[in-house]
């Protein structure tokens, strides 16, 4: 479980450092490019959007103003015609006291104003808004329907379009012109007209302002709004802002921008609006283009970065390969990196380094060969030296002993006891000399011999040696304690020499004890086996411990114990050749323990 968990964790944690150089560089560059592109695109988009919106609004404002002026102009001829009728003599006179004789003539004038079917009614009112005469196209009930409206429109001394009113399914508006006599307003001429836009007119409008744009007319007091076809609920208009533009959200939540303007000579407002989206279309298209261009730029950037990083890492890889080739000892492949940049310089520095390393190595090898040759020569010299020692030093010794023996055998009658003692001394000393030569040769040979390691059955080896040196069934009085001994991996001949020397020493130095006891054993400590040989013999003085393992150093007199002082030196040399250690513990007359440890 725990293992799985740590595994998952490792898989999940993404580390930038774990990426190779070749991956890191394009990643960094693409991230940088992305950040730049996003920021730049956003800023540009905002700028373009603002500009587009401003342009749109500007266009809207000017459109609204133009339409307002256009409508205002189109009212002028109607107002002029109405005012002309209001100024007609018969119309003026009919409002004067006793002017009823002009009624027929005035009515005739009024009838002239009903140019087509949209002109539904023409009325003449006196100053108190009392109907004097009227002309109607259809029947009397039309007039009665307008009666209620007569009080509604404002009256003043200027001809003007009145507010739009709704009657049933239709909308009507009055055109009012004052009738004056002697600079006094004596009554009003009111023409009612049906508000109706032909489909053709509507189409013309939409062509003029654009299909998505909408045009509304309404009363300045906000009492009614129309799209020229129907009455519409259009309460969002900000009548306080009739110079600029404004924004609002429609019922669907769509954002609209609008501009409203008063129409001169009327009580009307005109409003033009269109969805903000139309205005922003261009900006959005711009944004899309930016995103596409940005995407292309990023892809190209990554490609270039990848190529760049490859051009960086390829020589690095080459260097790496060359370095590991050199580590493997192959100097023959110089790094082929061209160019004068840092990498090229690094490569040429590397190549010259490789050459130097190769030369240094070659030098070293040559030196090693030279030294080996010298060493071999001196080894051979030493070999022949020890050979001649063994032959030439022994020959005189043999002669001494041989002729002394001849003396003893063939001239025994002529030698007195003292002479015989002297011949014995000569023989013993010569024998000792021979032994010394043998030991010295054995010791010097040790240094040259190669170690051939095998697995040694230590217990078997120790038993053999004990039987050889002091056979147990030979009636010897030694008490042997042999503890478990682990195997040794080493040179069998040499290790045998070690055990032989240590055990024969133990036998020798415990020989004059009443009950000699010799113990061998081992303990294993920290991957090392330590062996020991312990006796209860004469021991040694700890003061001279340092001399124990030196050649020809003895801690006992020859008269006490025979020996040449080479045995322990041989032990020390063999064990150190095996990478082990030798040491001893002891006290005078209390026995000695010899230890050696070998690496497992």
């Amino acid at each position, binding site marked *: 479980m725990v293992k799985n968990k740590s595994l998952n964790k490792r898989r999940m944690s993404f580390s930038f450092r774990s990426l190779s150089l070749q991956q890191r560089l394009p990643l960094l560059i693409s991230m940088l490019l992305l950040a730049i592109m996003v920021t730049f695109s956003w800023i540009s988009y905002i700028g373009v959007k603002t500009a587009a919106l401003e342009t749109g609004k500007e266009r809207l404002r000017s459109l609204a103003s133009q339409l307002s002026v256009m409508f205002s102009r189109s009212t002028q001829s109607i107002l002029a015609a109405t005012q002309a009728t209001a100024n007609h003599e018969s119309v003026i006179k009919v409002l004067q006291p006793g002017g009823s004789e002009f009624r027929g003539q005035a009515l005739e004038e009024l009838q002239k104003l009903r140019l087509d079917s949209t002109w539904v009614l023409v009325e003449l009112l006196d100053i108190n808004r009392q109907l004097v005469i009227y002309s109607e196209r259809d029947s009397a009930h039309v007039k009665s329907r307008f009666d209620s409206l007569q009080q509604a429109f404002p009256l003043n001394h200027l001809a003007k379009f009145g507010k739009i009113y709704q009657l049933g399914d239709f909308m009507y508006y009055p055109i009012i012109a004052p009738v004056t006599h002697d600079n006094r307003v004596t009554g009003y001429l009111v023409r009612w007209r049906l508000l109706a836009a032909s489909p053709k007119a509507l189409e013309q409008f939409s062509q003029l302002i654009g299909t998505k744009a909408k045009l509304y007319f309404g009363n300045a007091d906000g009492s009614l709004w129309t799209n020229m076809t129907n009455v519409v609920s259009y309460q969002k208009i900000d009548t306080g802002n009739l110079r600029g533009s404004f924004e609002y959200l429609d019922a669907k939540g769509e954002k609209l921008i609008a501009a409203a303007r008063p129409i001169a000579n009327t009580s009307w407002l005109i409003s033009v609006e269109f969805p903000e989206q139309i205005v922003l279309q261009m900006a959005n298209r711009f944004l899309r283009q930016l995103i596409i261009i940005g995407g292309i730029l990023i892809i190209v950037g990554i490609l270039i970065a990848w190529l760049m990083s490859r051009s960086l890492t390829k020589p690095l890889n080459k260097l790496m390969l060359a370095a590991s080739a050199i580590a493997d000892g192959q100097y023959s492949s110089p790094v082929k990196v061209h160019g004068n940049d840092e990498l090229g310089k690094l490569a040429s520095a590397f190549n010259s380094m490789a050459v130097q390393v190769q030369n240094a190595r070659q030098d070293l090898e040559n030196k090693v060969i030279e030294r080996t040759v010298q060493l071999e020569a001196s080894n051979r010299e030493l070999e022949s030296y020890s050979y001649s020692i063994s032959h030439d030093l022994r020959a005189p010794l043999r002669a001494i*002993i041989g002729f002394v023996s*001849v003396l003893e055998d063939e001239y025994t009658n002529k030698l007195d006891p003292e002479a015989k003692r002297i011949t014995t001394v000569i023989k013993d000393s010569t*024998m000792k000399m021979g032994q010394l030569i043998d030991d010295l040769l054995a010791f010097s040979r040790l240094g040259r011999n190669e170690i051939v390691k095998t697995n040694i059955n230590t217990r078997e080896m120790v038993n053999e040696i004990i039987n050889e040196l002091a056979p147990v069934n030979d009636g010897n009085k030694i008490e042997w304690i042999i503890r478990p001994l682990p195997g040794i991996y080493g040179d069998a001949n040499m290790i045998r020499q070690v055990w032989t020397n240590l055990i024969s020493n133990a036998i020798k130095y415990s020989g004059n004890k009443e009950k000699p006891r010799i113990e061998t054993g081992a303990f294993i400590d920290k991957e090392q086996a330590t062996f020991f040989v312990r006796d209860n013999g004469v021991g040694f003085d700890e003061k001279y411990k340092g001399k124990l393992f030196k050649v020809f150093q003895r801690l006992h007199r020859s008269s006490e114990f025979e020996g040449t002082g080479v045995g322990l030196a041989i032990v020390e040399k063999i064990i150190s050749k095996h990478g082990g250690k030798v040491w001893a513990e002891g006290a005078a007359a209390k026995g000695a323990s010899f230890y050696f440890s070998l690496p497992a």
Partner: protein
Amino acid sequence: MIADSVDILFVEDNFNDAELAIRELKKHHMANNLVHMEDGEEALEFIFGTGKFKGRNITRAPKLILLDIQMPKINGIEVLQKIKSDPRTRTIPVIMLTSSKEDPDIQKSYALGANSYIVKPVDFKGFSDAIRNLGFYWLLLNQPPV
């Protein structure tokens, strides 16, 4: 002159060693037909009837050759090689004499066909015993091929 019939050819450059060995052999009556050569060159001349010994009947080969390894001019190993590579002398038993039993020449001698070896110990008694025993064996007990 030297007799044609030779029991032992003893090749030893060291006079002291030679004298002691001959003394020992004489003591046991084995030195009656013993010829002592002082170096390898002389020994080869004797064996193959050349040089000083031109005209010697070489078919009367010694029954045993005691050959010291360490000698001036031509050493024991070379002499052994010549003896063992010649069909006429190949069957003669050769005992090598050496100062040390660790001598690498012992191995070489056996490889070349030596029949035995004696270490010349400092201890004279050991030496004389070895000489006597080997002499007895090779002269009296061993039957050379006909």
